[in-house]
């Protein structure tokens, strides 16, 4: 039988392993609430045994264990779940942006209510109706003028707030692009560090966790694909082109677009399409350029194509059509004293043009001018049969039920239609946020199942490794006693 200090080594190794495990346990507990942290486990295996020759033969007949050895510390993580989370995140990000902004747009219109634009349109036409019963009364004329001014103000306000919201969305797009560039550069750096650690055979757990977290955050902003390479680096693709290629990052550029005040996202020399980029940036681009759409009456606007389904466009068309219909009638009418009017009722108060959007419509300042202005409201036809002639006032009041916005659509029909369309967009976005939230919740639970820290487990491990440590220490103690006997209690040396 051979004898060596083997036993001491085994005991020491046991103590070291137990200590490493306890350290890792402490690390796990400390990081239980750290975002993106994956729990770590000490990878332990039995150390290779020493070959032991037999009594009569050099052939190995048995091996004595040399104790344990720590091979490394691994993080517990299911990479496939990460891929799924990244994929679903883009949809969630997009719908969250939709839901948030559609709500804001809805707040602008404040419908259904007694105070929204539709109520103001009703009041406007009602005022003209009342005027048909009392064309001579200045009080009733004042009501017509005030209702018209209120309606015009409400249209101005809606247009202004929609434009402001577009500017805010544009700001969010620019911020998101900055965030993505920051994430991408951090990922590129981490790629380098991780590759270095892994080449040396080490495990870069913390760095991997950090990189996964960055990828997860990025995946909410844009639709990314990732490819894991053997050297430990992750390549990140946006619509088939590398955003991060190993340690090289291609940044997104923010460049003013044809509208001047607004920005395009440029990637690799091309302006990215909202469908290609996806995620919340994609949704924000769609909100800015399609759902709200461009204000074609803005001085800087006409460089880019019109967006006929945008809310601004629909609102502008409504305001313009209202102005054109009312003006055509009003111009052809005559005043109470029988003189022909020839005057527009609504004017473009910014440029004086004959067409106007919601942001430019106002009641003719001549009409707004005090008591004298009231007399300039045309009620009679031309020629007028007398002060009681209300041909024009009736015709304007009847515009309410006239198909002015299409083959069958009245002003209010048109307004209702586009609000309902907006409501459908909002409703489906809210639903998607709920569903997608559920999906991600489920995925993150599964991730948590694999990677999360359970205190009870860690406590149990603590007890286990504490005992293991104590047992190894006890073994060492025993070897010490044996050696003591051999060294100090035996032999002729004494």
């Amino acid at each position, binding site marked *: 039988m051979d004898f060596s200090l083997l036993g001491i080594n085994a005991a020491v190794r046991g103590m070291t392993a137990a200590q490493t495990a306890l350290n890792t346990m402490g690390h796990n507990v400390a990081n*239980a*609430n750290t975002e993106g942290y994956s729990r770590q486990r000490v990878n332990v295996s039995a150390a290779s045994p020493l070959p032991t020759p037999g009594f009569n033969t050099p052939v190995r007949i048995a091996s004595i264990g040399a104790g344990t050895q720590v091979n490394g510390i691994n993080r517990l993580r299911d990479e496939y779940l990460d891929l799924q989370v990244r994929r679903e995140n883009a949809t969630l990000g997009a719908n969250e942006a939709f839901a948030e902004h*559609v*709500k804001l747009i*809805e*707040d602008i*219109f404040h*419908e*259904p209510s*007694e105070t*929204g634009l*539709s*109520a103001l*349109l*009703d009041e406007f*036409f*009602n005022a003209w*109706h*009342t005027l*048909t*019963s*009392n064309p*001579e*009364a200045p009080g009733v004329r004042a009501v017509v003028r005030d209702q018209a001014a209120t309606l015009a103000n409400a249209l101005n306000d809606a247009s202004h707030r929609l434009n402001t919201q577009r500017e805010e969305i544009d700001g969010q797009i620019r911020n998101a692009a900055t965030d993505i560039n920051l994430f991408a550069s951090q990922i590129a750096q981490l790629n380098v560090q991780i590759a270095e650690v892994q080449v040396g055979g080490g495990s870069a757990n913390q760095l991997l966790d950090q990189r996964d977290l960055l990828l997860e955050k990025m995946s909410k902003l844009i639709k990314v694909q990732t490819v894991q390479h053997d050297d430990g680096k992750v390549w990140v693709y946006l619509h088939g082109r590398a955003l991060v290629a190993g340690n090289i990052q291609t940044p997104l550029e923010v460049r003013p677009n044809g509208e001047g005040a607004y920005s395009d996202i440029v990637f690799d020399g091309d302006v990215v399409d909202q469908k290609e980029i996806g995620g919340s940036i994609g949704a924000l681009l769609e909100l800015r350029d399609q759902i709200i759409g461009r204000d074609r009456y803005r001085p800087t606007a006409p460089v880019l194509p019109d967006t006929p389904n945008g809310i601004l466009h629909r609102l502008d068309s409504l305001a313009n059509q209202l102005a054109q219909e009312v003006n055509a009638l009003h111009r052809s009418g005559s005043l*109470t004293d029988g003189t022909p009017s020839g005057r527009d009722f609504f004017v473009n108060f910014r440029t004086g043009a004959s067409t106007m959007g919601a942001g430019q419509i106002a009641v003719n300042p001549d009409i707004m001018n005090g008591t004298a202005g009231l007399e300039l409201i045309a009620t*009679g036809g031309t020629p*007028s*049969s*007398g*002060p*009681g*002639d*209300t041909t024009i006032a*009736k015709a304007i009041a*009847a515009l*309410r*039920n006239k198909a002015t916005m299409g083959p069958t659509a009245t002003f*209010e029909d048109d307004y*209702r*239609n586009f*609000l*309902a369309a*907006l*409501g*459908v967009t*909002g*409703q489906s*976005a809210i639903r998607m946020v709920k569903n997608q939230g559920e999906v991600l*919740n489920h995925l*993150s*639970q599964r991730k*948590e*199942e694999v990677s*999360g*820290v*359970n*205190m*009870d487990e860690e*406590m149990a491990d603590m*007890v286990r490794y504490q005992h293991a440590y104590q047992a190894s220490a006890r073994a060492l103690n025993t070897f010490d006693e044996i050696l003591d006997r051999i060294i100090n209690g035996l032999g002729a040396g004494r």
Partner: protein
Amino acid sequence: MRVTNNMIFGATTTHARNHLEKLFGLQNQLATGKKITRPSDDPTGTDRAMLLRGTLKQQEQYQENIRDASTWLTLTDGALSEAYSVMDRARELAVRGANDSNQSDERIAMAEEVKQLRSQLQVIANSEINGRFIFGGTMTVAQPNRTPAFEMPYPDPVPPATEIAYTGNDVLMDTEVVPGVTLPYNTPGASAFGQGTDADRAFKVLEDLELALRNGDSTEISQSIGRLDVALNRVSTERAVVGSRINRLDLLENRYADAAISYKERLSETEEPEFADVVSQLMQQESVYQASLAASARIIQPSLLDYLR
């Protein structure tokens, strides 16, 4: 399934948030009395609510138009009825005056009364409502039956009929009472009291009668009875027209009043929550919320640490 502490905490907060969100929604419904506060809550419901509210607003306006026209027509009816009795009284006097047995001073007295009756008729023919003259066609701001020398209301001495000029016109004024349907509401003076210098124009007949009575011209007096009949007939025809218009407006107004009730009901069905429903949902949601909090509180507390050593 492996459960971690973070999962429990996460689930606790998620569930609490979800329950609170639902509670908040129900509380909102109760507090505002609305189940639709924005189009995305219910796009179809929003569309319907807006349509119903628009229709209601429009119908309220039609009701107002109807009330305005009714007031006008009722006043017209009253004026015409007065005009009828004035002219009927004149006819009575004419019938009496035509009898040769009357003394000339009696006829003079009758002539004086006829003169006053003519003045009264002029006042009636210049009736106004809120400063609008009702018998002037669209010439609503000036007295339609005017004498240049004498301004209303009580010309004295009574001017000769030839000087009472009709300055109004024959234009009918109408108001929209149903989308696309208008109803005329005024009676031009000419159709109620006769045109220009026609012999049977009410003012002219009365003046001729007065003159005939003064002159004791029995033939002329008898002839004026016939002309008075024509003038009376004209007034009663117009009254019939006015009456039928009032009836039509009454019918429409009743219909709108009924429709308003049913539209309002539908609007509240669309927009407002069922109170009892929401309250019971609220109670239910409240107990679910409390149960989930209680369950979380029990799970979060203990850990293995409590039982070690």
